[in-house]
């Protein structure tokens, strides 16, 4: 039963991915018929040059031929070439991957502390603590992260000069080891804080309402009747149940880690996937954009799969046990 559950989820994820590959391919072919001409607009290209470029970017032949060629390349881990500097898309994307994982991953982990606050607020519903936490969460949740970025930038970076205004590390720095790490942390502090504040409200609100949903359950009454302390009733009986929706949310949000921070990365000139996306869109650099879209979709599908499998583990009613 369990193997069958995993297999079902796996097949589901793979077929979604296959659909995304096809959709993603044709989307960019539909968006612009004469990609090469529009890309190299203003330059005088001879028909033979155009033909060569079209071959290089897999734009010659029928759509079907292009598609099979694309899939063939994809299976070999080849996403084509960037139209900007003719480097492989995998290299361009690969360079930007780690800074984003570092920034958004860190802030997502920071934001997950909101689960703790949300559980406590839900448990002590309508208390002063609850009102405070909920108000704060609603406020930060509805605040645009681009706006907060600029406030922080003006206040702490250009204003007080406590933090650098942007970038991954000091330019021209050749620090290594711990010094390099500290330098990067210094650069990351503001954008990570902005993102953590932007994300924390969602975790808090979801955790709070999940906790409130469990408060009325009869098994909490039974746990109390057994003689458990209030804190034990919460931690042993309420929290494991309230955790279920929170796990789904967290796993899904990890799927958004890669694509989550376009505005903030741009404002803080953070050389990650968000900034790359923006640059590729303004280029326009279709192969890079196509590669990014595929990566974002794939990571979301993967996170969904993980959410399903984890759900099957923590909720015995799911997952054929």
């Amino acid at each position, binding site marked *: 039963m369990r193997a069958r559950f995993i297999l079902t989820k796996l097949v589901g994820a793979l077929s979604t991915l296959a659909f995304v590959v096809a959709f993603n391919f044709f989307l960019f072919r539909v968006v612009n018929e004469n990609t090469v001409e529009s890309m190299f607009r203003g330059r005088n290209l001879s028909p033979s040059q155009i033909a060569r470029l079209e071959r290089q970017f897999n734009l010659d032949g029928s759509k079907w031929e292009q598609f099979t060629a694309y899939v063939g390349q994809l299976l070999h881990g080849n996403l084509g070439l960037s139209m900007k500097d003719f480097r492989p898309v995998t290299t361009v994307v690969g360079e930007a991957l780690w800074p984003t994982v570092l920034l958004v991953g860190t802030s997502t982990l920071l934001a997950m502390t909101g689960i703790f606050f949300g559980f406590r607020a839900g448990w002590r519903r309508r208390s002063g603590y609850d009102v405070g936490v909920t108000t704060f969460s609603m406020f930060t949740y509805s605040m645009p992260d681009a706006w907060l970025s600029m406030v922080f930038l003006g206040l702490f970076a250009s204003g007080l000069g406590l933090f650098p205004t942007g970038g991954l590390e000091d330019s021209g720095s050749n620090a290594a080891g711990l010094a390099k790490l500290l330098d990067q942390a210094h650069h990351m502090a503001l954008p990570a804080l902005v993102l953590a504040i932007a994300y924390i409200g969602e975790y808090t609100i979801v955790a709070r309402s999940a906790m409130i949903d469990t408060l009325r*359950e*009869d*098994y909490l*009454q*039974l*746990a*109390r*009747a*057994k*003689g*458990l*302390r209030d804190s034990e009733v919460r931690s*042993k*009986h309420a929290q*494991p*149940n309230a955790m*279920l929706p929170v796990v789904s949310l967290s796993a899904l949000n990890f799927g958004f880690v890669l694509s989550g921070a376009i505005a903030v990365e741009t404002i803080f000139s953070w050389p990650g996937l968000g900034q790359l996306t923006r640059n590729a869109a303004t280029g326009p650099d279709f192969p890079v954009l196509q590669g990014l879209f595929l990566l974002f979709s794939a990571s979301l599908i993967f996170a969904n799969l993980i959410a399903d499998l984890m759900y099957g583990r*923590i*909720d*015995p*009613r799911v997952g054929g*046990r």
Partner: protein
Amino acid sequence: MSVLELHDLHVTYRTDGGSVPAVRGVNLSLDTGDTVGLAGESGCGKSTIAGAVLRLLPKGTEVSGKVLLDGEDVYAMKPGRLRAVRWTSAAIVFQGALHSLNPVRRVGLQIEEAILLHSQQSARSARIRVGELLEKVGLPAGQAERYPHQLSGGQRQRVLIALALACEPKLLIADEPTTALDVMVQAQVLRLLEELQREHGLSLLFITHDLSVLTHTCERLAVMYAGRIVEEGPSTQVFADPQHPYSRALAAAFPTIGDPASRMNPQGLAGDPPDPSALPAGCPFHLRCAVAAPECSSLDVALRPAGAGRSAACVHVGATDV
């Protein structure tokens, strides 16, 4: 000494819509080995009494009067003492068809938790005890590894009974333990409760809306209406010869088996139970009462003697014109 005594118990819930008096002056006493049934329609306050005994009512609920467990006032206990008394002096058999068991924890662990909480023993011996308890209620010991959703309604109810027995309480409060079970399973669960009660000399407070269930299981019967006991006495007598018109209506709602006249014509009771937050003046039952007298709309009668070991709260009781 009494295992459980309720003295003039009043419970008032505080809601957004105002205060709701759910229990309005209940006196009840159970000695060791006593079996008492508490019957009444939903909303009459019978389940509130179960919650009141172990102080499980929601925060802000007003409780006055006294609840004595083994002579000790439950509402004067410090939190630590209260937690120690819960499940050891009195345990509750909750309704198993609903969600009394935690869905994400194995049932064995939920029983084990109670054992470990109230005794100094190793997890290993507690697990052995869990197996014994499950076998005692007619389940294989291996069912401890199951999650609640893997058990049937009847099995879950048995688990809840095993759980209630885990700390060997003197008093068992069964709060509608057979509701939502099919009739065959109901009978099995009842028989199990009766056996366990006899075997362990337990005192049993059995709460249900099903009067016929109570007459089999309980020696004494208390019928509740609108937060009060309106009739009390030996259960066979109360069922066969009810003194209060409400008990009469409840008893008549169950056809006598083998009596075609009653089977073809079961007597229901018209109207709904009164809203506890807006009780009518006088006797709260007079609007639905078949034998209401003019004074019933202003006169609220307390329990009065109605024969040997019996009492009822009705103007007609003790009078000759019934």
